[in-house]
Each structure stands twice: as C-alpha cells, then as structure tokens.
C-alpha cells in the first residue's frame, strides 16, 4: 500500500531500526532480571548484568598455604618449598598481574618471580599455581599475594536450586508456588462457570429485568476493588470464612465476574440464532442447549477470559494480602513473598531476581502459548 504509486518508501529502514530499538528497549528490563538470576551474588555485585557475557576483571587478595600446616612445606635439596594454587576453589580465572605488597599490586606479570626478604622467592603462574621457596624453614602465615584476575563469563543454576528446592523458609518459593496455584486454578474456573451460565441467560433467555441487569454488569465493570476490601473482610470474618482459600476464591470470583459476563455475553449473542431455535423446537431444555451447543461454540471466548483471569489472579497482590494471608503466613503467595524478600533481602539480587523470575515464568509461558486468545479477548472487551 505504501508503494502504491510504484515507488519504494524511503522510510523502510528508519521503520525497521525504530522497531528494533523499541523492542530492545522493552525487552531490556526483563532480560536484565533473567541474566541476573543465573549469576552468583559475587558476580552480580562486581559488575552490571550487561557485562555478564564478557569476562570480568577483579582485584583479589589471596594467600599461599600456611607454612605451619602439617606437610605444607617440603625440603627439596637445600630449599624449603611450598607449592599449590592460590585459588581455593576451581575457577577458570586467569591472573594477569600480581604483587606481594598492597602498595604495588601490579608489580609482576604472571609467570614472573618476586624476590622478598631473607632470600624468599615466589613465582605465580597464570592459573594461580605458585611456588614459594626459602633457604630457611618458613613459619607464620602464608604469603599474601595481590592478584588482578580475569574471570570468564559464567552462569550458574544454584540460585534456582536455592529458591525452588531448599528448605530455607525465607528463600524457598516452593510453598508459595503451590499456594499461588491453589488460589489461581479455582479462582479462574469458578467465575467462568458462573459467568457462562449467567451470560447465556442474559443473551438468550427472556425474563423481566434483563436489560437492567446487563447495564448493571457494565457499570460494575469499573468499580474499583479497593472499595470492597473492608466490607468484605468484615463480612468474611463475620460469617466465619475468615482469611483463607475460600475467601480469596470468592473475592476473585466476584471481582472477575463483570468482565467474564460481559465478554461471554457479547460473544454468545453473536452465535447463530437458528441453531438454538432448532434445538428448542427439537425439545432440548435450556440446560441441554447450554451444555451441548453453547459451551463448545463459545470456547474462544471462554479461553480469552480464562487467560485474563489466570494472569490477573496469578499476579495479584492486594486481594491475596487482604483475604488470604493470615498472621501465620503459611498461605503466602509468590507476589507477597517477593515483596517480603524486597524488604528482608533488598540487596541480595541473586535471590530476588530468581524468585521474581520463578513467579513470572508461568504467566509468560501462558502468554506466549495462548496469545491469540488473549488478544481476541482484549479486543472484545474494550473495542465494543
């Protein structure tokens, strides 16, 4: 359409580049979280995550083995020798420069030999291997070595291990994960069932007051759920539901219903009238028509709303905080646990990032798998 007159639009490249920039800008924050969740605490605090793909350079103070340790030094010829590796754990770090004094930490290159007092000499290799010799018996603590080491990019799954499978009650998300599921699944299915029946009645059954009910649903669509918090909490406490799963399901059902009824009714009204009337003539009751004809035909609308409600309940914090989570905190959901982690582990980005990613992984999966229905629902819900 743009080259309708036979000339190519000169804006083509500009558009391509702007879209790439826009997409990168929108992805950048999430990618940061994802990358951080695969890094260790040390890596996170030493460099920004955007450097994670490149090697990091850092200054470290390391120490040779203590000569006083049993079997640390050996007498080779007339020299006392201590050999070993400066790095305590296996790493792939490589040392570029090093020194024996904090004032000159880059005095020697890797592989060079430093001479110290009393004829002691020490050689440090790139991989951290050292050889420390002295004509007299060595004593005291091990020689300090200041190194500048380059660590290659490295990623770890240990954060996920800790967040998902450890028994640590503050860090573990496993319990919260199941709680979130327990909230989400019924809170998605129950409103769909209730709304589907109501939507059918509002779309295809004739009874007095129908128009007013539809207007009411549209009006309730925008009532902020903030208003419902105190009265409903009082109600729940009053009739003995208290704080718990039942209460949070009911609350989510109530808050999700207007949109559900609205979406489903709009869809059902558009179904062909002939099918329903033929079925009626053949003697089917409304219940049979609904379960055998309308429900299967309304699958796309049901799926759209299901995704909405699933995303909304999974991501919800306010309703869970008010209606579900009691003083014991056993029924905490993931969003709440993350907020608590923000308080207690504000600086531990490896835990925070991993916990957050665990909680957003499921919605993202659902999103990418069912995007078609989500978009359809959005369009039906707002453009009408």
């Amino acid at each position, binding site marked *: 359409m743009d080259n309708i007159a036979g000339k190519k639009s000169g804006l083509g490249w500009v558009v391509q580049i702007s*879209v790439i920039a826009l997409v990168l800008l929108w992805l950048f924050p999430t990618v940061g*979280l994802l990358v951080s969740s695969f890094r260790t605490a040390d890596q996170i605090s030493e460099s920004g995550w955007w450097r994670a793909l490149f090697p990091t350079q850092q200054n470290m103070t390391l120490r040779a083995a203590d000569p006083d340790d049993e079997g640390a030094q050996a007498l080779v010829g007339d020299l006392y020798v201590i050999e070993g590796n400066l790095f305590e754990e296996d790493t792939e770090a490589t040392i570029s420069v090093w020194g024996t004094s904090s004032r000159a930490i880059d005095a020697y290159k890797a592989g060079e030999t430093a001479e110290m007092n009393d004829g002691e000499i020490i050689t440090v290799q790139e991989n951290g291997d050292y050889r420390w010799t002295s004509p007299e018996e060595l004593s005291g603590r091990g020689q300090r070595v200041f190194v500048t080491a380059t660590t290659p990019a490295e990623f770890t799954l240990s954060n996920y291990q800790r967040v998902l499978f450890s028994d640590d009650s503050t860090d573990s998300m496993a319990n919260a994960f199941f709680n979130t599921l327990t909230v989400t699944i019924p809170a998605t299915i129950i409103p769909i069932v209730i709304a589907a029946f109501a939507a059918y009645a509002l779309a295809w059954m004739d009874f007095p007051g129908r128009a007013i009910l539809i207007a009411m649903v549209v009006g309730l669509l925008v009532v902020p759920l903030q208003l419902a918090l105190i009265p409903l909490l009082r109600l729940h406490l009053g009739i003995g539901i208290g704080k718990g799963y039942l209460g949070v399901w009911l609350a989510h059902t*109530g808050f999700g219903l207007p949109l559900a009824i609205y979406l489903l009714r709009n869809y059902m009204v558009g179904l062909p009238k002939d099918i329903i009337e033929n079925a009626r003539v053949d003697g089917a009751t409304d219940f049979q028509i609904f379960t055998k004809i309308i429900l299967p035909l309304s699958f796309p609308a049901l799926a759209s709303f299901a995704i909405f409600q699933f995303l909304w309940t999974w991501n919800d914090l306010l309703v869970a905080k008010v209606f579900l989570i009691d003083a014991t905190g056993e029924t905490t959901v993931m969003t709440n646990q993350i907020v608590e982690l923000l308080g207690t582990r504000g600086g531990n980005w490896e835990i925070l990032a991993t916990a957050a990613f665990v909680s957003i992984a499921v919605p993202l999966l659902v999103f990418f798998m069912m995007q078609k229905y989500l978009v359809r629902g959005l369009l039906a819900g707002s453009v009408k």
Partner: protein
Amino acid sequence: MEAAYKGILTIFLGVGGCLLYYYLSNQFLDKVLYPAKGEKAGQNINRANMIRPWLFILPAMLALGLYLAYPVVATLWYSLTDRNQGGAFIGLANYQQMMNEPKFWEAMRNNMLWLIIVPAASTAFGLLAAQLTDRIKWGSVAKSLIFMPMAISFVGAAVIFKLIYDTRPVDQAQIGVLNAVWLQFEGGIGSWLILRLLPALLMLCGAAISIYAAYGVFSAIREKGGAVLRSIAVIFLAFIGYSFLSLAAGAFTAVHEYGVPQNWLTIPGWNSFLLMVVLIWIQTGFAMVILSAALRGIPEETVEASIVDGANPFQVFFKIKIPQISGTIVVVWTTITLVVLKVFDVVFAMTNGQWETQVLANYMFDKLFRANDWGVGSASAMVIMLLVSPILIWNVYNARKEMK
C-alpha cells in the same frame, strides 16, 4: 508435597461444588419440581422455563451484589461513621480529617500526575509501536515482545525496575543501569542538553498542550454554554498546565551531582516518574494491540485515496488514520486510566509511598491495614470511586445506546 495434595483437594472441592450446583438445581427443577411428563407436562415445562433463567443467573447476581454492589454502599457508610464510637454516624468528619492530612494531598497530586502521564505515554507509545510494526514483516514477533510485559505482575515489574534503579556506594561498581548511565555524564554541554534542556522542553510541551486545551474549553463556554462542567475542566486543565510549568522550571534549574551515584527512588519529584515508567512499560503493549487492530480496520480506500492525492506518510497517519481511530484511542485511554486509578502494587513494592510517591490506592491500604483507621480509609476509597464514576456513567450510557 503435602501442600500440593492439600491444594489439589481444595481445588477439587471448590470447583466441584460449583459445578454440582448447576447440575443438581436443573435436575431438581426438571425431574422433581416440574417434571415434563404426566397430565400437566405442558404447563410444567412453561413454569420450569420461567424459573430457569433465575437458576442460571442467581449465583452471578449473588456474587456481583455481595462482592461489588454491597461494598460500594457499605464503604460509603463506613466513611460516614466512626468505628471507635461503635459505628456512630459522624457526618463528613472522616473526610475532613483526610483533607487535613498533607499525605492525602500528596497522594492526590501524584495520582493526577499518574492519570495524565501514564495513559498519555502508553497510548502514544502504543500508537507508535502499532503503526511501525504494521509495516514490517516481523511485526507480529515485535508486537508479542512489546506486549509481553502485560503478563508480568506489577510486583515482578517492580523487582525488574528496582534492579534498574539500584544504587551502590560510590566506590563500588554500579549494577543499576540508570546509575551506570548517569555516571557517564560529567557536566559538559552534552549533559546540559540531555539533562536540562530536553526535560524542560518536554515539560513545556505538556504545559502548552494543556493550556491550549484549557483555552479550547474556555472558548467553548462562550459558544456552547455548559458553564459549570466546562469551567471545572478549565480549572483542572489550567492546574495541570501550571504543574507542568513548575516542573519545567525545576528541570531547568535543578542542580545535578555529576559523578555521584544517585538514590533514584528517594529523590522527590523524579521518583514518581520512575514509578510511572513501570506502568507505562506494562500498558504500552495493551494500547498497541488494540490500536493495531483499529488501524487494520481502517478502510483501505481512504488511505489509498489520500496517497493518490499526494499525502506523505505523516499526513496519512495524522490526518487520515488518527481521526478514524479516535474512538478506539478514547477507549484505550479510559481503560488505562482505570488501571492507573487502582495502581497499588507498583508503589507498594517499590517505595511504599515514601519520599513523596504516595498514591491514593496505597494511601488507602496504609490507612486500612497499618493505621487501622477504617473511617479515613473508606473515605479515600470513596474518592477513588468518585474519580471512576464518570467513566462508569459513560460506559453504561454507551452500553444502553448499543442495546437499542
């Protein structure tokens, strides 16, 4: 694992109970109460069909009435009573107390800023993204990537952006992107252009637009009347324009500490904008999806005709396409406005209303569950309801019109 089993059992009971109601109640109606056989079969069927709609709709009505309609009335009542005096009616005392709190006005002011900036920015970005992605081959991939934040919870987004705004002491490496970028500025001409001129110009644009809109409404008073509503709108718009002007002055004269990492979320003024960025990031995808569908719905003939008449791409976009999707833009705008009015999680998780970032929803939560002041909490909930009600009335009005 025990939690999982318990969860499955509870799920089963909850969902099963709900399904059972519909099945059993309909069975009861057809088989026991008015069986469709015997001598009165015809009459029975008619009666059953009169009752059935109510069987279908009763649970929904109960839930809606109890969970949405009743709370509106109850909250209104709580806002007029005092819990400590055994629920005695105290008139508007709660509202008065609320009005006297500076925190409330801070929340109001911030909410107004949110209400203007977030819908405007999300719609603008969404329109831009929709228009751009419609023209390229991999547009659908780009769209789903921009749309993706929609699936991320506000809390998750808060963590994501806290990482971006993170601050480390001066001598450590900065792991927050914003500070890493900030440290690149050293106070030269580039810094002056980007950090003073650009924000000041942006704010001046905002001021110009709102003052122009106020002028438009003002001249409408003389031509069309409707003085009361329109003068409220003028005052409102003028206030917005004034806020933009003072922000512009602030941005231009602000003293920046170059080379020093900033605690972004604790700087009053800036931090609210940084929180808004989170919501804009989430809502842009929504705006893009809806607007992109609307753009595709534009009849091709209108676009073709304008190109034949020699319109350039910008003219096609602004003069042909935008006017045709203005209805959808309004819908997107109002939908995002509703989200903004209820914004709670982002502020709660990132600053909890400290450092002058309070918004109404969080103020209300604070009053309800931390100060335990139900009267003022309900009063602030009613303020949110009041702000929502124009949209509510407009929606109902449109729905009624559509049904006829």
